[in-house]
């Protein structure tokens, strides 16, 4: 409608900062108006503006008015929801005078407005749930002191390792004794599945494209360092979107799990690199789902598809790259998984473990039971609802998916029923290290039945200082405006990030996790092998959870 005659509309339909999730607290007295905050704000949520201060005063014994008027420059918060402050605090970071910071507004109504143009709110990050997760509620309650050998993590040397790949039971291994030594009986003509011994925490799939070059390379270099220098066999999954050709041709390839997902991006390049590979990859991961956004596909926006992505993914520049929620040639569990595992195994001569990754779901057991019968299936990776993502609909992130703890547990117990718990490793992910307790969360999952635990957000926070948290802080991963330079293809932003620092932090994180895992396992009397499924060591302070997980209740 038209404005009434002779008026100018002012605040009609304008929001106050109270509606927004973060309110900028700016201190005029401290501010020197240098503009660093406004220059650095990734979403232009703050802008320099002009304010009038006017005061009428009266001096002397009788009313004698005067007026003082000052026009000053100020920093003001933009209340357009599309430019709403995301709380990243880059302003605080760059402010030389501690004059500005975003403050979480618990009473915000941001979600009421994030649907401009009739599209749902999309963002990156994780499920915004700051409550204490089940993983963080699990306690290690079986402490060995006098009942069985208690170990000292600092004093006793023991290795924390896991197996990735299908482990045949001893009686099925085609071995024979010759001159007192066990050798493979080639006459038995039996397939021995490939198995890798790895550190039980791996870096989960984050693609070249989702991550910036220094972030991806930093992680990759850290992984190489951990293996080559520290002797810690950490592996990292590529995510969908190909692999840098230089890495494919290098001997470091053996530390990487290559992912294939529904978009098959970069796979022609990978296939072409096959004859040049000097090492096999650690494994192949077939992505069917992602814990953070079950049923939601991925989209790498055209603006990110520059020379680098184009080269690595084998696509033209400046096009949208969609990874659909489903594989186009998938018809049933039997058919789809079996043929994918066959194809991928065949590509490397059945020398590389191949396993599918699914979202945490009530149907995980069905998938698992299928895999248990597939001799080529190397593992099952389950990504719980607390996983992270570079881009998804908020509704998918916040509301879709299954928590990892009970999902993993029921899968493991299914394997136990079949007597196959030591055969088919389960990889668990989703919310590991959510509150910084990487080793404890990992140990808890291992004791619930995981052979390997996969991390994503945690390493971004720990290795690259990602601002994101469970209060929707930052979460700009999908916009290409990541202020830390982690999830952007804009050199102006990603050149803030030092790949060497990321690598160093990655090394520190895994070294520390190794120490901490020992600190957990040693007092529980475990040293020589990973306590996979050792659920008698776990308790939780909630009866229902204890019952669901099949562990004891402790309070």
């Amino acid at each position, binding site marked *: 409608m038209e404005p009434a005659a002779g008026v100018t509309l002012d605040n009609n339909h304008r929001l106050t900062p109270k509606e927004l999730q973060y309110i900028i607290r700016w201190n005029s007295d401290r501010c020197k108006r240098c503009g660093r905050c406004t*220059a650095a704000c990734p979403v232009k949520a703050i802008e320099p503006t002009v304010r009038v201060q006017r005061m009428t005063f009266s001096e002397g014994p009788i009313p004698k008015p005067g007026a003082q008027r000052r026009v000053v420059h100020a920093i003001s918060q933009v209340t357009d929801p599309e430019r709403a402050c995301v709380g990243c605090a880059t302003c605080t970071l760059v402010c030389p005078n501690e004059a500005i910071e975003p403050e979480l507004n618990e009473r915000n109504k941001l979600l009421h407005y994030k649907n401009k143009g009739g599209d749902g709110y999309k963002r990156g990050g994780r499920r915004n749930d700051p409550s204490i997760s089940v993983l963080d509620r699990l306690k290690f309650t079986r402490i060995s002191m006098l009942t069985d050998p208690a170990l000292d993590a600092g004093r006793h040397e023991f290795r924390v390792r896991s197996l990735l790949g299908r482990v045949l039971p001893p009686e099925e291994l085609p071995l024979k004794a010759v001159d007192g030594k066990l050798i493979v009986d080639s006459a038995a003509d039996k397939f021995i599945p490939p198995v890798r011994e790895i550190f039980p925490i791996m870096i989960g799939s984050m693609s070249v494209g989702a991550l910036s070059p220094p972030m991806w390379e930093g992680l990759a*270099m850290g992984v*190489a360092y951990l293996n080559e220098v520290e002797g810690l066999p950490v592996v990292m999954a590529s995510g969908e979107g190909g692999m840098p050709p230089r890495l494919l041709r290098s001997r470091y390839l053996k530390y990487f799990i290559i992912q294939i997902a529904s978009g098959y991006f970069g796979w022609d390049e990978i296939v072409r690199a096959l004859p040049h590979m000097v090492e096999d990859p650690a494994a192949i991961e077939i992505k069917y789902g992602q814990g953070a956004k079950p049923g939601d596909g991925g989209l790498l926006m055209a603006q990110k598809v520059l020379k680098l992505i184009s080269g690595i993914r084998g696509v033209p520049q400046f096009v949208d790259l969609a990874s659909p929620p489903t594989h186009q040639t998938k018809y049933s569990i039997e058919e789809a998984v079996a043929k994918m595992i066959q194809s991928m195994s065949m590509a490397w001569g059945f020398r590389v473990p191949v396993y599918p990754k699914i979202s945490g779901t009530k149907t995980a057991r069905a998938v698992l039971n299928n895999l248990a019968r597939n001799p080529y299936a190397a593992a099952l990776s389950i990504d719980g609802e607390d996983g992270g993502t570079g881009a998804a609909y908020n509704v998918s992130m916040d509301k879709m998916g299954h928590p990892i703890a009970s999902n993993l547990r029921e899968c493991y117990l299914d394997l136990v029923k079949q007597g196959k718990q030591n055969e088919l490793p389960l990889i668990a992910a989703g919310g590991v290290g959510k509150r910084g307790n990487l080793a404890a969360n990992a140990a808890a999952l291992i004791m619930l039945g995981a052979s390997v635990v996969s991390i994503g957000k945690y390493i971004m926070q720990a290795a690259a200082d990602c601002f994101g948290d469970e209060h929707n802080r930052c979460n700009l991963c999908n916009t290409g405006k990541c202020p830390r330079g982690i999830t952007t293809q804009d050199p102006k932003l990603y050149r803030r990030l030092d790949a060497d620092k990321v690598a160093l932090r990655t090394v520190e994180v895994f070294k520390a996790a190794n120490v901490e895992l020992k600190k957990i396992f040693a007092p529980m009397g475990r040293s020589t092998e990973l306590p996979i499924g050792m659920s008698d060591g776990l308790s939780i302070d909630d009866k229902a959870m204890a019952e669901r997980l099949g562990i004891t209740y402790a309070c």
Partner: protein
Amino acid sequence: MRAKTIKKKVEVKNKKSEVKAKKTTTAKTTAKATAKKAAPKPAAKPAAKKAAVVQSAIKKPAPAPAVRIPQMKGVALSHPAGKAKKTPMVAASAPKPLPAIEKRQDGSVLVRGLVGGQRTPSRILEEQIQQLVQEGARNLTIVADGQHGIGGRIWPRSEKVQITIEGPAGQRVGSMGFDGTEIVVRGSASDDVGWINCGAKITVLGDVTNGAFNAAAQGILYVQGSGGARCDTMTKRNPRFDPPQSWYFRNVGDSFAEFKAGGIAVVCGVNPRNPENILGYRPCVGMVGGTIYFRGKIEGYSERDVKLLDLSETDWEWLTTNMKPYLEAIDRTEYYGELTRSIDDWKKLVAYTPQEKAQKKKYQIDIKNFRKVAWEKEVGQGGIFAEFLDHDLTLLPYVTTGKDRRNVPVWANDKYAPPCAAGCPSHIPSHKRATLIREGKLAEAISLVLQYSPLPATVCGTICPNLCMQSCTRGRLDAPLAIDKLGKLALDIPAPRKADPTGHKVAVIGGGPGGMSAAWQLALKGHTVSLYEASAKLGGKIEMCIPHERLPQEILQKEISRFTELGVKLHLNTRVDQKLFEEIYRNNEIVIVAIGAHQPRKIAFPGSDQITSAYDFLRSVNMGSAPDLKDKKVVVIGAGNVGMDVAIEAYNCGASQVTAVDIQKPAAFGKEMQAATAKGAQILYPKFTERFDPAAKKLYFKDGSSIDADVVFMSIGDVPVLDFLPPDVHVEKGWLQVSDLGQTSDVKVYGVGDATGLGLVTHAIGQGALVADVVHYQMAHAPRAPEVKQQIAYERIKTQYYEACKLEFEPNAEGNRCMSCASCRDCRMCENTCYEQAISRVDLGNGRFEYVVDENKCIGCGFCAGICPCGVWEMVENV
């Protein structure tokens, strides 16, 4: 007092349970082994002899003691009766057993731990020893049978207390031993020899098993053989005393010296069990103090905790000096020469100091180096992505300058149109008038408008609804700039100077505002313009249809005469028909059709033939032949601005009541509406007319209602009469079809004003000027579309700088009231605000200037854009 306390502690311990001594076979076998291997001939003899003694002591149980063991008064009282009973005090069998305690002539005492086949409990043996020492015994020989802790806890006295242990000693020989106590174990000892040693000198003539010297704080341990696992762990040094010493002749077992916090350990490495590794697996984990001297090969140690060094002269002196008494004690003096042959045979392990640990590199190779020597060596120079990256492989700060800025400021002076100019259909840039006023050029400011309109006093100053003022940003603060009044001031200004003649000929058909505007602009540009007007006067509908009350005739006439002075060839009273059009078309390069809309539109319904059109009525009024409407009730069908003019004139002609009806919300607005309603005009809507009954003097509506109507005027618009145009010029639904630039389907023919669609006078003037521009460029063979500037967003104008005021109109004051939207007012606010001092003003001469940015200083903060009063600075993405 002190002694009492300790005694109590002992009692408490005794009460708990008898800790059974570990009678291991290890002790036996190691003893044997020591005897065989450790001491090759000729040195083997004494050892072998002693070992034999030990063996016999074990194998041949001594007879049970005949006499009751004397009980110490105090101690005995403290024992619970039941427990005391359990202890076999009296031998049961007949053969006379050897006594438990045998005092010898030389003052020494023999204590038997196995009496009559019954092992003396550790508690009793301890009591016996303590009692004997208290009674003055200083030389005791204990024939042990695995009792716990023999020889410890003997409080220091003036004389030495010597204790010789024969037979299998139990665990923790000499534990908590004091200085002044000297213990010799004739054979091997079990675990934890010298546990928490507080000064005793303990010599073991055999091996020690696991945990020897654990937590020792003072004293000496001499071992003739080897040590088991975890020897010398947790030893410490109390600064009040000499550090503890432990000497191992052969080698030690795994996990040696864990958490060692002080003391000196010496491992001589003679005839070691594992010649490849005399310190066992992973020694020194957690070691924080003390020194380990060793001689022989090792296979690693906890590098995190200790460092391997050569011996210094001081070390060597200490070692060689203290070696002698050690070798004497273990009866191996013959090895002195071999062991002190060379300082180079020895090494030492010492703990890193906390400072050293803090300074120690946490990584074997730093990441930068790893990148160089491992990563890039394997994946290639610049890393895995280098082949795809175009930029420098360097880091950038968060706040950047130059090409690395995310956004850059642009001094977009006059890039956008101010709201006044954008809102004005004639595109008159009123802000430029304000600029001229501020510069003190009032006359120029007032005459500027003539560049845009030939009729500023008439239109801007009088009849125009002044959309410019409705848009004016200043209006948001107090009142809009008085553009109407400024326009009126141009009334007496002569026409601007014409450009030199170009020789180009243009015809304009129609002398209304559209035609006049086009002719005016073309004439000013030096073109030859012929204007054809059907009536006798210029001005079109302004002249014919606008009530004189609203437009005083002298204003219009004055502006018309200024127009005529410009030299446009006027052809008044010349109605253009097909024939004339063809001629005009032939004789001119361009023909502009601006004939207006003069044919009233009518709707047919019963009685509509009795209705006069607004056009005819208004024209008759202005021609001086107005009808008499005295006391008549007048209804106007159509409540647009023309309808309002009809209402005004109807009242002027004496009407008692005028009602305008419309089928929708009235389109009338502004001055027309105000003037009409002021006179009493009513507006009714929505009303769909059904019929007019002149006899009943009623107008009926489709909703069944009716209204009294003596006279009805139809004011639903007019349409042009375009029958003179050739078919090549496309007309649709009665209107001349033109492009955005005013061009018809014939490239030579343009259309302007109401002939193309009804609009305001200012629209016609704007279109005339636009077409003149387009035509001008077309004739110059440089066709182009005139630039249409986007209107600047209001938010960009910082009205906060201005204070609301209550000024009467005064031309000179308007200059400062104007907010100079989108046009730099040269206030230097940006220059003063820029923290980085990146903005400077550059004088270009002739009063021209610009503001420039030093990109090496600018960080792209947007302050200039955020605070610019005029909204001139804008931030654009830096790509």
